[in-house]
Protein backbone atom coordinates (compact mmCIF):
# COMPACT_ATOMS: atom_id res chain seq x y z
CA UNK A 1 0.00 0.00 0.00
CA UNK A 2 0.91 3.65 -0.11
CA UNK A 3 2.99 5.88 2.06
CA UNK A 4 3.55 4.90 5.68
CA UNK A 5 1.76 7.38 7.90
CA UNK A 6 2.42 6.25 11.40
CA UNK A 7 4.25 3.37 12.94
CA UNK A 8 4.40 2.04 16.48
CA UNK A 9 7.53 0.03 17.26
CA UNK A 10 7.58 -2.32 20.19
CA UNK A 11 5.23 -0.21 22.29
CA UNK A 12 4.79 -1.49 25.84
CA UNK A 13 2.72 -0.01 28.63
CA UNK A 14 2.47 -1.12 32.21
CA UNK A 15 0.46 0.36 35.03
CA UNK A 16 2.57 -0.51 38.03
CA UNK A 17 2.94 -4.27 37.78
CA UNK A 18 0.07 -4.76 35.39
CA UNK A 19 1.11 -5.11 31.76
CA UNK A 20 -1.54 -3.56 29.52
CA UNK A 21 0.54 -3.76 26.37
CA UNK A 22 3.59 -5.89 25.80
CA UNK A 23 5.50 -4.86 22.70
CA UNK A 24 3.01 -3.83 20.04
CA UNK A 25 4.01 -3.23 16.43
CA UNK A 26 1.40 -1.45 14.38
CA UNK A 27 1.47 0.72 11.32
CA UNK A 28 -1.08 2.65 9.36
CA UNK A 29 -0.60 3.56 5.70
CA UNK A 30 -2.10 6.47 3.88
CA UNK A 31 -5.71 5.96 2.87
CA UNK A 32 -6.33 2.65 4.59
CA UNK A 33 -8.89 1.67 7.18
CA UNK A 34 -7.47 -0.48 9.93
CA UNK A 35 -9.94 -2.42 12.04
CA UNK A 36 -8.66 -2.93 15.56
CA UNK A 37 -10.49 -5.72 17.34
CA UNK A 38 -10.14 -7.54 20.58
CA UNK A 39 -12.00 -8.48 23.70
CA UNK A 40 -12.49 -6.26 26.71
CA UNK A 41 -9.13 -5.81 28.36
CA UNK A 42 -7.22 -6.69 25.21
CA UNK A 43 -5.52 -3.30 25.31
CA UNK A 44 -7.39 -1.51 22.52
CA UNK A 45 -8.18 1.59 24.51
CA UNK A 46 -4.69 1.77 26.01
CA UNK A 47 -3.20 1.55 22.53
CA UNK A 48 -5.50 4.33 21.30
CA UNK A 49 -4.65 6.51 24.26
CA UNK A 50 -0.96 6.09 23.47
CA UNK A 51 -1.53 6.94 19.82
CA UNK A 52 -3.49 10.05 20.75
CA UNK A 53 -0.86 11.07 23.30
CA UNK A 54 -3.04 10.84 26.38
CA UNK A 55 -0.89 8.08 27.84
CA UNK A 56 2.86 7.80 27.56
CA UNK A 57 4.21 4.36 26.61
CA UNK A 58 6.54 2.70 29.11
CA UNK A 59 8.84 1.82 26.25
CA UNK A 60 8.87 1.79 22.48
CA UNK A 61 9.03 4.22 19.63
CA UNK A 62 6.47 6.23 17.68
CA UNK A 63 7.29 7.22 14.11
CA UNK A 64 5.36 9.76 12.12
CA UNK A 65 6.01 9.54 8.37
CA UNK A 66 9.13 7.53 9.10
CA UNK A 67 10.58 9.93 11.63
CA UNK A 68 10.61 9.15 15.36
CA UNK A 69 8.93 11.76 17.59
CA UNK A 70 10.29 12.46 21.07
CA UNK A 71 8.18 13.45 24.10
CA UNK A 72 4.96 12.29 22.51
CA UNK A 73 1.86 13.95 24.00
CA UNK A 74 -1.70 14.90 23.09
CA UNK A 75 -0.70 18.19 21.51
CA UNK A 76 2.02 16.54 19.39
CA UNK A 77 -0.35 13.82 18.31
CA UNK A 78 -2.76 16.41 17.00
CA UNK A 79 0.09 18.29 15.32
CA UNK A 80 1.09 15.09 13.57
CA UNK A 81 -2.38 14.97 12.03
CA UNK A 82 -3.96 12.39 14.30
CA UNK A 83 -7.47 13.08 15.51
CA UNK A 84 -9.27 10.82 17.91
CA UNK A 85 -12.95 10.32 18.56
CA UNK A 86 -12.82 8.77 22.00
CA UNK A 87 -15.18 6.15 23.24
CA UNK A 88 -16.56 8.54 25.86
CA UNK A 89 -16.56 11.21 23.11
CA UNK A 90 -14.50 13.56 25.29
CA UNK A 91 -17.12 16.28 25.33
CA UNK A 92 -17.65 18.95 27.94
CA UNK A 93 -21.41 18.67 28.19
CA UNK A 94 -22.12 22.02 29.80
CA UNK A 95 -20.33 23.91 27.04
CA UNK A 96 -21.51 24.94 23.61
CA UNK A 97 -20.88 22.98 20.42
CA UNK A 98 -18.36 25.64 19.38
CA UNK A 99 -16.38 25.34 22.59
CA UNK A 100 -16.26 21.57 22.23
CA UNK A 101 -15.15 21.62 18.62
CA UNK A 102 -12.28 23.98 19.42
CA UNK A 103 -11.36 22.46 22.76
CA UNK A 104 -7.58 22.49 23.15
CA UNK A 105 -6.98 24.53 19.98
CA UNK A 106 -9.09 27.63 20.36
CA UNK A 107 -8.88 30.06 17.47
CA UNK A 108 -7.27 33.00 19.14
CA UNK A 109 -5.66 36.13 17.86
CA UNK A 110 -3.92 38.98 19.59
CA UNK A 111 -2.94 38.17 23.19
CA UNK A 112 -5.06 35.03 23.31
CA UNK A 113 -8.41 36.71 22.64
CA UNK A 114 -10.77 34.35 20.89
CA UNK A 115 -11.82 34.88 17.29
CA UNK A 116 -15.42 34.19 18.21
CA UNK A 117 -16.94 34.91 14.80
CA UNK A 118 -14.39 32.68 13.03
CA UNK A 119 -15.02 29.84 15.45
CA UNK A 120 -18.74 30.03 14.97
CA UNK A 121 -18.47 30.16 11.18
CA UNK A 122 -16.13 27.16 11.13
CA UNK A 123 -18.39 25.23 13.49
CA UNK A 124 -21.35 25.88 11.22
CA UNK A 125 -19.38 24.74 8.19
CA UNK A 126 -18.24 21.54 9.92
CA UNK A 127 -21.72 20.66 11.07
CA UNK A 128 -23.02 21.11 7.55
CA UNK A 129 -20.14 19.09 6.11
CA UNK A 130 -20.98 15.98 8.08
CA UNK A 131 -24.64 16.31 7.17
CA UNK A 132 -25.46 17.50 10.62
CA UNK A 133 -27.96 20.20 9.91
CA UNK A 134 -30.94 20.51 12.16
CA UNK A 135 -33.24 23.32 13.06
CA UNK A 136 -33.26 22.23 16.65
CA UNK A 137 -29.81 23.46 17.61
CA UNK A 138 -27.19 26.03 16.69
CA UNK A 139 -23.41 26.21 17.20
CA UNK A 140 -24.21 27.90 20.50
CA UNK A 141 -26.35 25.01 21.76
CA UNK A 142 -25.22 23.25 24.91
CA UNK A 143 -23.86 19.78 24.14
CA UNK A 144 -25.68 18.29 27.15
CA UNK A 145 -28.97 18.91 25.36
CA UNK A 146 -28.05 16.82 22.33
CA UNK A 147 -28.87 13.16 21.74
CA UNK A 148 -26.21 10.46 21.68
CA UNK A 149 -25.92 10.51 17.90
CA UNK A 150 -25.70 14.27 17.80
CA UNK A 151 -22.95 14.23 20.42
CA UNK A 152 -21.07 11.72 18.29
CA UNK A 153 -21.56 14.18 15.45
CA UNK A 154 -19.91 16.95 17.46
CA UNK A 155 -16.99 14.66 18.31
CA UNK A 156 -16.59 13.75 14.64
CA UNK A 157 -16.89 17.37 13.52
CA UNK A 158 -14.05 18.16 15.90
CA UNK A 159 -11.96 15.34 14.43
CA UNK A 160 -12.32 16.49 10.81
CA UNK A 161 -11.72 20.18 11.51
CA UNK A 162 -7.99 20.05 10.80
CA UNK A 163 -8.04 17.81 7.70
CA UNK A 164 -6.38 15.15 9.81
CA UNK A 165 -4.38 12.42 8.07
CA UNK A 166 -5.46 9.75 10.52
CA UNK A 167 -8.75 9.60 12.35
CA UNK A 168 -9.12 7.14 15.19
CA UNK A 169 -12.68 6.09 15.94
CA UNK A 170 -12.91 4.27 19.27
CA UNK A 171 -16.15 2.29 19.36
CA UNK A 172 -17.97 4.99 17.43
CA UNK A 173 -21.17 2.99 17.03
CA UNK A 174 -21.69 2.02 20.64
CA UNK A 175 -25.05 3.21 21.97
CA UNK A 176 -26.12 4.61 18.61
CA UNK A 177 -29.35 3.92 16.81
CA UNK A 178 -29.35 2.20 13.42
CA UNK A 179 -29.68 5.39 11.41
CA UNK A 180 -26.97 7.02 13.46
CA UNK A 181 -24.69 4.03 12.96
CA UNK A 182 -25.30 4.30 9.23
CA UNK A 183 -24.26 7.90 9.33
CA UNK A 184 -21.01 6.97 11.01
CA UNK A 185 -20.30 4.35 8.31
CA UNK A 186 -21.16 6.82 5.63
CA UNK A 187 -18.69 9.21 7.20
CA UNK A 188 -15.94 6.58 7.33
CA UNK A 189 -16.35 5.86 3.61
CA UNK A 190 -16.26 9.58 2.88
CA UNK A 191 -13.03 9.99 4.81
CA UNK A 192 -11.50 6.98 3.10
CA UNK A 193 -12.50 8.29 -0.30
CA UNK A 194 -10.69 11.54 0.46
CA UNK A 195 -7.45 9.60 0.92
CA UNK A 196 -7.21 9.81 4.67
CA UNK A 197 -6.63 6.91 7.03
CA UNK A 198 -8.79 5.53 9.79
CA UNK A 199 -8.34 3.24 12.73
CA UNK A 200 -11.73 1.78 13.51
CA UNK A 201 -12.19 0.08 16.86
CA UNK A 202 -15.28 -1.94 17.40
CA UNK A 203 -16.84 -4.58 19.54
CA UNK A 204 -19.14 -5.58 16.77
CA UNK A 205 -16.96 -7.56 14.40
CA UNK A 206 -19.55 -7.39 11.62
CA UNK A 207 -19.31 -3.58 11.74
CA UNK A 208 -15.53 -3.66 11.59
CA UNK A 209 -15.51 -6.31 8.91
CA UNK A 210 -17.71 -4.24 6.64
CA UNK A 211 -15.48 -1.24 6.77
CA UNK A 212 -11.83 -2.16 7.27
CA UNK A 213 -9.11 -3.03 4.72
CA UNK A 214 -6.93 -4.68 7.30
CA UNK A 215 -7.62 -6.25 10.67
CA UNK A 216 -5.46 -6.25 13.74
CA UNK A 217 -6.60 -8.51 16.53
CA UNK A 218 -5.34 -7.76 20.03
CA UNK A 219 -5.41 -10.14 22.94
CA UNK A 220 -4.03 -9.50 26.40
CA UNK A 221 -1.76 -6.73 25.22
CA UNK A 222 -0.25 -8.34 22.13
CA UNK A 223 -1.10 -8.51 18.45
CA UNK A 224 -2.28 -12.07 17.84
CA UNK A 225 -3.40 -11.69 14.23
CA UNK A 226 -2.82 -9.27 11.42
CA UNK A 227 -4.61 -9.95 8.19
CA UNK A 228 -6.09 -8.12 5.24
CA UNK A 229 -9.63 -8.11 4.04
CA UNK A 230 -8.59 -10.05 0.96
CA UNK A 231 -7.16 -12.85 3.06
CA UNK A 232 -10.24 -13.17 5.22
CA UNK A 233 -13.16 -15.17 3.97
CA UNK A 234 -15.83 -13.86 6.29
CA UNK A 235 -16.52 -12.13 9.58
CA UNK A 236 -17.28 -15.57 11.05
CA UNK A 237 -13.70 -16.62 10.38
CA UNK A 238 -12.48 -13.71 12.48
CA UNK A 239 -14.97 -14.46 15.22
CA UNK A 240 -13.90 -18.10 15.32
CA UNK A 241 -10.28 -17.06 15.52
CA UNK A 242 -11.00 -14.72 18.42
CA UNK A 243 -12.91 -17.42 20.26
CA UNK A 244 -10.00 -19.81 19.87
CA UNK A 245 -7.66 -17.15 21.22
CA UNK A 246 -9.89 -16.38 24.14
CA UNK A 247 -10.57 -20.01 25.11
CA UNK A 248 -7.66 -22.09 23.85
CA UNK A 249 -8.37 -24.93 26.30
CA UNK A 250 -11.92 -25.43 25.14
CA UNK A 251 -10.78 -25.94 21.56
CA UNK A 252 -7.49 -27.70 22.10
CA UNK A 253 -9.13 -31.10 21.81
CA UNK A 254 -10.46 -30.18 18.40
CA UNK A 255 -6.96 -29.46 17.23
CA UNK A 256 -7.32 -25.75 16.49
CA UNK A 257 -4.26 -24.05 15.06
Amino acid sequence: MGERLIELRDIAKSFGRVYALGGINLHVDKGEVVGLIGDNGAGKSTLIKILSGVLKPTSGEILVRGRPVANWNAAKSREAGIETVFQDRALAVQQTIVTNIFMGRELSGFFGWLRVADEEREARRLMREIGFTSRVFTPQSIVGQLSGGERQGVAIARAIYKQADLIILDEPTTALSLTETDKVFHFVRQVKASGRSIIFIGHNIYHVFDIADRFVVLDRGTVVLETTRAETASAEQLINFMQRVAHPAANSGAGAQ
Partner: protein
Amino acid sequence: MTDIAEPKQDKRGHMTTGAGSHDPIHPAERPMRRLFLANRAWLGTLGVFVVMMAVFIAANPRVFSSWGLYASVLTTLPVALFLTVPLVYIVTAAEIDLSFPATMGFAGWIFALVVQAGYDPFLGIVAAILTGMALGLLVGSLVVYANLSSLIATLGMNFMLRGLILMLTQSKSIALVTLDQTWAYRIFSSQVYGVPLQILWALAFVFVCALLYNRHRFGVQVHVVGDNPDSANEMGVDVKRVRVKAFVFMGLGAALAGVFSTMINFTWWPTSGDGYLLPVLASVFVGGTPTWGGIGTVVGGAIGALIVSFIQTGVVGAGLSGFYVQFFNGLIIILSLIGHRWNQVRYR
Protein backbone atom coordinates in the same frame (compact mmCIF):
# COMPACT_ATOMS: atom_id res chain seq x y z
CA MET B 1 -24.44 -3.20 3.97
CA THR B 2 -27.17 -1.56 1.97
CA ASP B 3 -26.82 2.12 1.45
CA ILE B 4 -29.70 4.04 2.93
CA ALA B 5 -30.01 6.90 0.50
CA GLU B 6 -32.92 8.67 2.09
CA PRO B 7 -32.07 9.56 5.68
CA LYS B 8 -34.88 8.97 8.10
CA GLN B 9 -36.19 11.86 10.11
CA ASP B 10 -36.92 11.13 13.73
CA LYS B 11 -39.71 12.65 15.78
CA ARG B 12 -37.88 15.82 16.67
CA GLY B 13 -36.50 16.34 13.20
CA HIS B 14 -32.93 15.47 14.15
CA MET B 15 -30.31 13.94 11.91
CA THR B 16 -31.86 15.13 8.69
CA THR B 17 -29.64 15.99 5.79
CA GLY B 18 -29.84 18.75 3.29
CA ALA B 19 -33.15 20.20 4.35
CA GLY B 20 -31.74 22.68 6.83
CA SER B 21 -29.85 24.96 4.46
CA HIS B 22 -32.62 27.40 3.62
CA ASP B 23 -34.65 27.10 6.76
CA PRO B 24 -35.97 30.26 8.35
CA ILE B 25 -33.82 31.62 11.14
CA HIS B 26 -33.68 29.43 14.22
CA PRO B 27 -35.56 30.86 17.25
CA ALA B 28 -32.41 30.76 19.38
CA GLU B 29 -30.56 32.74 16.69
CA ARG B 30 -32.76 35.82 16.87
CA PRO B 31 -30.56 38.57 18.27
CA MET B 32 -32.65 39.46 21.33
CA ARG B 33 -33.26 35.87 22.31
CA ARG B 34 -29.63 35.01 21.76
CA LEU B 35 -28.58 37.89 23.99
CA PHE B 36 -30.99 36.67 26.64
CA LEU B 37 -29.81 33.05 26.48
CA ALA B 38 -26.15 34.03 26.64
CA ASN B 39 -26.69 36.24 29.65
CA ARG B 40 -29.39 34.27 31.38
CA ALA B 41 -27.40 33.44 34.51
CA TRP B 42 -26.51 36.95 35.58
CA LEU B 43 -29.84 38.43 34.48
CA GLY B 44 -31.40 36.20 37.15
CA THR B 45 -29.02 37.62 39.74
CA LEU B 46 -29.87 41.13 38.62
CA GLY B 47 -33.54 40.24 39.12
CA VAL B 48 -32.84 39.16 42.70
CA PHE B 49 -31.03 42.45 43.34
CA VAL B 50 -33.83 44.57 41.88
CA VAL B 51 -36.50 42.77 43.92
CA MET B 52 -34.43 43.05 47.10
CA MET B 53 -33.84 46.77 46.60
CA ALA B 54 -37.52 47.32 45.81
CA VAL B 55 -38.45 45.71 49.12
CA PHE B 56 -35.92 47.85 51.01
CA ILE B 57 -37.01 51.07 49.31
CA ALA B 58 -40.68 50.31 49.94
CA ALA B 59 -39.87 49.67 53.61
CA ASN B 60 -38.11 53.01 54.09
CA PRO B 61 -38.15 55.34 51.07
CA ARG B 62 -36.50 58.23 52.95
CA VAL B 63 -33.29 56.42 53.95
CA PHE B 64 -32.90 54.77 50.57
CA SER B 65 -33.15 58.00 48.63
CA SER B 66 -30.06 59.49 50.30
CA TRP B 67 -26.74 59.23 48.47
CA GLY B 68 -24.79 58.68 51.68
CA LEU B 69 -26.05 55.12 51.99
CA TYR B 70 -24.94 54.24 48.49
CA ALA B 71 -21.61 56.03 48.90
CA SER B 72 -20.82 53.92 51.94
CA VAL B 73 -21.56 50.70 50.05
CA LEU B 74 -19.50 51.90 47.08
CA THR B 75 -16.54 52.49 49.37
CA THR B 76 -16.35 48.92 50.62
CA LEU B 77 -17.78 47.04 47.64
CA PRO B 78 -14.60 47.27 45.47
CA VAL B 79 -12.57 45.09 47.84
CA ALA B 80 -15.27 42.42 47.66
CA LEU B 81 -15.34 42.67 43.85
CA PHE B 82 -11.58 42.12 43.53
CA LEU B 83 -12.05 38.91 45.52
CA THR B 84 -15.35 37.63 44.14
CA VAL B 85 -14.52 37.80 40.44
CA PRO B 86 -11.35 35.64 40.49
CA LEU B 87 -13.12 33.22 42.82
CA VAL B 88 -15.70 32.71 40.06
CA TYR B 89 -12.83 31.43 37.89
CA ILE B 90 -11.69 29.07 40.64
CA VAL B 91 -15.18 27.68 41.17
CA THR B 92 -15.69 27.32 37.41
CA ALA B 93 -12.50 25.27 37.29
CA ALA B 94 -14.19 23.00 39.86
CA GLU B 95 -11.83 24.03 42.65
CA ILE B 96 -12.28 26.21 45.70
CA ASP B 97 -9.92 28.66 47.39
CA LEU B 98 -10.33 29.51 51.06
CA SER B 99 -6.85 31.01 51.34
CA PHE B 100 -7.63 34.32 49.66
CA PRO B 101 -8.25 36.24 52.92
CA ALA B 102 -4.72 35.47 54.10
CA THR B 103 -3.27 36.17 50.64
CA MET B 104 -5.07 39.51 50.70
CA GLY B 105 -3.67 40.25 54.17
CA PHE B 106 -0.18 39.19 53.12
CA ALA B 107 -0.13 41.27 49.94
CA GLY B 108 -1.57 44.26 51.78
CA TRP B 109 1.18 43.86 54.35
CA ILE B 110 3.89 43.95 51.67
CA PHE B 111 2.25 47.07 50.21
CA ALA B 112 2.17 48.72 53.64
CA LEU B 113 5.81 47.80 54.31
CA VAL B 114 6.99 49.27 51.01
CA VAL B 115 5.04 52.50 51.55
CA GLN B 116 6.14 52.72 55.18
CA ALA B 117 9.76 52.37 54.06
CA GLY B 118 9.29 55.55 52.05
CA TYR B 119 8.97 54.13 48.54
CA ASP B 120 6.36 55.22 46.05
CA PRO B 121 2.99 53.45 46.53
CA PHE B 122 3.08 52.37 42.86
CA LEU B 123 6.12 50.30 43.71
CA GLY B 124 4.17 48.95 46.67
CA ILE B 125 1.31 47.95 44.38
CA VAL B 126 3.67 46.08 42.07
CA ALA B 127 5.28 44.35 45.04
CA ALA B 128 1.87 43.42 46.44
CA ILE B 129 0.69 42.00 43.13
CA LEU B 130 3.84 39.93 42.74
CA THR B 131 3.42 38.66 46.30
CA GLY B 132 -0.20 37.75 45.71
CA MET B 133 0.58 35.90 42.48
CA ALA B 134 3.50 34.07 44.10
CA LEU B 135 1.24 32.96 46.95
CA GLY B 136 -1.40 31.91 44.41
CA LEU B 137 1.25 29.89 42.60
CA LEU B 138 2.25 28.26 45.87
CA VAL B 139 -1.31 27.39 46.86
CA GLY B 140 -2.20 26.27 43.33
CA SER B 141 0.90 24.08 43.01
CA LEU B 142 0.12 22.46 46.36
CA VAL B 143 -3.40 21.65 45.24
CA VAL B 144 -2.58 20.61 41.69
CA TYR B 145 0.84 18.99 41.78
CA ALA B 146 0.65 17.52 45.28
CA ASN B 147 -2.89 16.49 44.30
CA LEU B 148 -4.51 17.74 47.52
CA SER B 149 -8.16 18.56 48.05
CA SER B 150 -8.44 22.27 47.35
CA LEU B 151 -11.05 22.69 50.10
CA ILE B 152 -8.75 21.42 52.83
CA ALA B 153 -5.39 22.50 51.42
CA THR B 154 -6.45 26.11 50.93
CA LEU B 155 -8.06 26.17 54.37
CA GLY B 156 -4.73 25.03 55.79
CA MET B 157 -2.84 27.61 53.74
CA ASN B 158 -5.19 30.31 55.02
CA PHE B 159 -4.33 29.43 58.62
CA MET B 160 -0.63 29.09 57.87
CA LEU B 161 -0.29 32.38 56.03
CA ARG B 162 -2.34 34.26 58.61
CA GLY B 163 -0.28 32.69 61.36
CA LEU B 164 2.90 33.74 59.58
CA ILE B 165 1.64 37.33 59.40
CA LEU B 166 0.76 37.34 63.09
CA MET B 167 4.10 35.81 64.08
CA LEU B 168 6.19 38.19 61.99
CA THR B 169 4.31 41.38 62.85
CA GLN B 170 3.59 40.47 66.46
CA SER B 171 0.04 41.44 65.50
CA LYS B 172 0.91 45.12 65.07
CA SER B 173 -0.95 47.18 62.50
CA ILE B 174 0.71 49.66 60.14
CA ALA B 175 -0.75 53.16 59.74
CA LEU B 176 0.06 54.97 56.50
CA VAL B 177 -0.70 58.56 57.42
CA THR B 178 1.00 60.21 54.47
CA LEU B 179 -0.72 58.04 51.88
CA ASP B 180 -3.29 60.68 50.90
CA GLN B 181 -0.48 62.97 49.66
CA THR B 182 0.51 60.50 46.96
CA TRP B 183 -0.53 60.22 43.33
CA ALA B 184 -1.42 56.58 43.76
CA TYR B 185 -4.02 57.53 46.34
CA ARG B 186 -5.44 60.32 44.16
CA ILE B 187 -5.74 58.00 41.17
CA PHE B 188 -7.02 54.89 42.87
CA SER B 189 -8.85 55.78 46.02
CA SER B 190 -9.91 59.44 46.34
CA GLN B 191 -13.39 60.77 45.69
CA VAL B 192 -14.53 62.69 42.63
CA TYR B 193 -17.91 64.42 42.97
CA GLY B 194 -18.74 62.14 45.86
CA VAL B 195 -17.98 58.97 43.87
CA PRO B 196 -15.21 56.87 45.41
CA LEU B 197 -12.76 56.23 42.57
CA GLN B 198 -12.00 52.67 43.66
CA ILE B 199 -15.44 51.56 42.47
CA LEU B 200 -14.55 52.66 38.95
CA TRP B 201 -11.33 50.64 39.07
CA ALA B 202 -13.24 47.67 40.45
CA LEU B 203 -15.83 47.94 37.68
CA ALA B 204 -13.07 48.10 35.08
CA PHE B 205 -11.61 44.96 36.67
CA VAL B 206 -14.99 43.21 36.50
CA PHE B 207 -15.37 44.22 32.85
CA VAL B 208 -11.94 42.93 31.82
CA CYS B 209 -12.43 39.74 33.80
CA ALA B 210 -15.83 39.12 32.22
CA LEU B 211 -14.24 39.43 28.76
CA LEU B 212 -11.36 37.21 29.81
CA TYR B 213 -13.87 34.66 31.10
CA ASN B 214 -16.01 34.50 27.97
CA ARG B 215 -13.82 35.62 25.13
CA HIS B 216 -10.31 34.56 25.98
CA ARG B 217 -8.44 31.33 25.64
CA PHE B 218 -7.78 31.25 29.39
CA GLY B 219 -11.45 31.66 30.25
CA VAL B 220 -12.57 28.93 27.84
CA GLN B 221 -9.94 26.54 29.14
CA VAL B 222 -11.07 27.21 32.73
CA HIS B 223 -14.58 26.26 31.60
CA VAL B 224 -13.62 22.98 29.91
CA VAL B 225 -11.24 21.98 32.70
CA GLY B 226 -13.99 22.49 35.25
CA ASP B 227 -16.54 20.75 33.07
CA ASN B 228 -14.62 17.62 32.12
CA PRO B 229 -10.91 17.49 32.98
CA ASP B 230 -10.46 14.08 31.33
CA SER B 231 -11.83 15.30 28.02
CA ALA B 232 -9.79 18.49 28.23
CA ASN B 233 -6.71 16.36 28.78
CA GLU B 234 -7.56 14.11 25.84
CA MET B 235 -7.91 17.19 23.66
CA GLY B 236 -4.48 18.45 24.60
CA VAL B 237 -5.41 21.08 27.20
CA ASP B 238 -2.77 21.25 29.93
CA VAL B 239 -5.27 20.72 32.74
CA LYS B 240 -2.84 21.16 35.62
CA ARG B 241 -1.41 24.34 34.20
CA VAL B 242 -4.86 25.86 33.72
CA ARG B 243 -5.77 25.04 37.32
CA VAL B 244 -2.59 26.59 38.67
CA LYS B 245 -3.19 29.67 36.52
CA ALA B 246 -6.63 30.05 38.09
CA PHE B 247 -5.05 30.08 41.55
CA VAL B 248 -2.43 32.62 40.43
CA PHE B 249 -5.26 34.77 39.11
CA MET B 250 -7.01 34.48 42.48
CA GLY B 251 -3.77 35.65 44.11
CA LEU B 252 -3.71 38.67 41.80
CA GLY B 253 -7.26 39.61 42.77
CA ALA B 254 -6.54 39.10 46.46
CA ALA B 255 -3.47 41.35 46.18
CA LEU B 256 -5.51 44.13 44.57
CA ALA B 257 -8.12 43.72 47.31
CA GLY B 258 -5.39 44.01 49.95
CA VAL B 259 -3.96 47.15 48.36
CA PHE B 260 -7.34 48.85 48.00
CA SER B 261 -8.43 47.89 51.49
CA THR B 262 -5.22 49.42 52.91
CA MET B 263 -5.59 52.56 50.81
CA ILE B 264 -9.23 53.03 51.80
CA ASN B 265 -8.48 52.72 55.51
CA PHE B 266 -4.98 54.32 55.54
CA THR B 267 -4.12 51.40 57.77
CA TRP B 268 -3.12 47.80 57.33
CA TRP B 269 -4.32 45.42 60.03
CA PRO B 270 -2.86 41.97 60.63
CA THR B 271 -6.42 40.64 60.39
CA SER B 272 -6.97 42.36 57.04
CA GLY B 273 -9.10 40.12 54.82
CA ASP B 274 -10.48 37.82 57.48
CA GLY B 275 -13.97 39.26 57.36
CA TYR B 276 -14.28 38.64 53.63
CA LEU B 277 -14.16 34.85 53.55
CA LEU B 278 -17.83 34.02 53.97
CA PRO B 279 -19.40 37.06 52.26
CA VAL B 280 -17.22 36.56 49.17
CA LEU B 281 -17.99 32.84 48.98
CA ALA B 282 -21.69 33.68 49.33
CA SER B 283 -21.39 36.33 46.59
CA VAL B 284 -20.04 33.83 44.07
CA PHE B 285 -22.92 31.41 44.61
CA VAL B 286 -25.61 34.07 45.04
CA GLY B 287 -24.28 35.43 41.75
CA GLY B 288 -25.31 32.29 39.91
CA THR B 289 -22.12 30.24 39.62
CA PRO B 290 -22.96 26.65 40.58
CA THR B 291 -20.73 24.60 42.86
CA TRP B 292 -20.01 21.74 40.44
CA GLY B 293 -17.78 23.65 38.00
CA GLY B 294 -17.78 24.13 34.24
CA ILE B 295 -20.14 27.08 34.15
CA GLY B 296 -20.45 30.38 35.95
CA THR B 297 -20.86 34.09 35.52
CA VAL B 298 -18.46 36.90 36.35
CA VAL B 299 -21.03 39.66 36.03
CA GLY B 300 -23.42 37.63 38.18
CA GLY B 301 -20.70 37.26 40.81
CA ALA B 302 -20.22 41.03 40.82
CA ILE B 303 -23.96 41.57 41.29
CA GLY B 304 -23.87 38.89 43.98
CA ALA B 305 -21.22 40.95 45.81
CA LEU B 306 -23.49 43.98 45.45
CA ILE B 307 -26.41 42.04 46.91
CA VAL B 308 -24.38 40.72 49.84
CA SER B 309 -22.98 44.14 50.69
CA PHE B 310 -26.41 45.73 50.48
CA ILE B 311 -28.11 43.23 52.78
CA GLN B 312 -26.60 44.59 55.97
CA THR B 313 -27.08 48.24 55.01
CA GLY B 314 -30.54 47.47 53.71
CA VAL B 315 -31.85 45.55 56.69
CA VAL B 316 -30.71 48.23 59.12
CA GLY B 317 -31.85 50.99 56.76
CA ALA B 318 -35.27 49.40 56.46
CA GLY B 319 -35.70 50.02 60.17
CA LEU B 320 -34.92 46.57 61.58
CA SER B 321 -32.34 46.12 64.29
CA GLY B 322 -28.94 44.61 63.54
CA PHE B 323 -30.14 41.30 65.02
CA TYR B 324 -32.09 40.67 61.84
CA VAL B 325 -29.09 40.97 59.50
CA GLN B 326 -27.89 37.38 59.69
CA PHE B 327 -31.34 35.97 59.17
CA PHE B 328 -31.93 38.01 56.02
CA ASN B 329 -28.42 37.26 54.84
CA GLY B 330 -29.22 33.58 54.93
CA LEU B 331 -32.70 34.02 53.51
CA ILE B 332 -31.43 35.83 50.44
CA ILE B 333 -28.68 33.27 49.86
CA ILE B 334 -31.16 30.40 50.00
CA LEU B 335 -33.75 32.16 47.84
CA SER B 336 -31.23 33.00 45.14
CA LEU B 337 -29.85 29.45 45.13
CA ILE B 338 -33.37 28.15 44.56
CA GLY B 339 -33.83 30.69 41.79
CA HIS B 340 -30.58 29.71 40.07
CA ARG B 341 -31.39 26.04 40.38
CA TRP B 342 -34.57 26.65 38.49
CA ASN B 343 -32.75 28.81 35.96
CA GLN B 344 -30.03 26.19 35.36
CA VAL B 345 -32.33 23.27 34.64
CA ARG B 346 -31.49 23.54 30.96
CA TYR B 347 -27.85 22.70 31.55
CA ARG B 348 -28.31 19.33 33.17
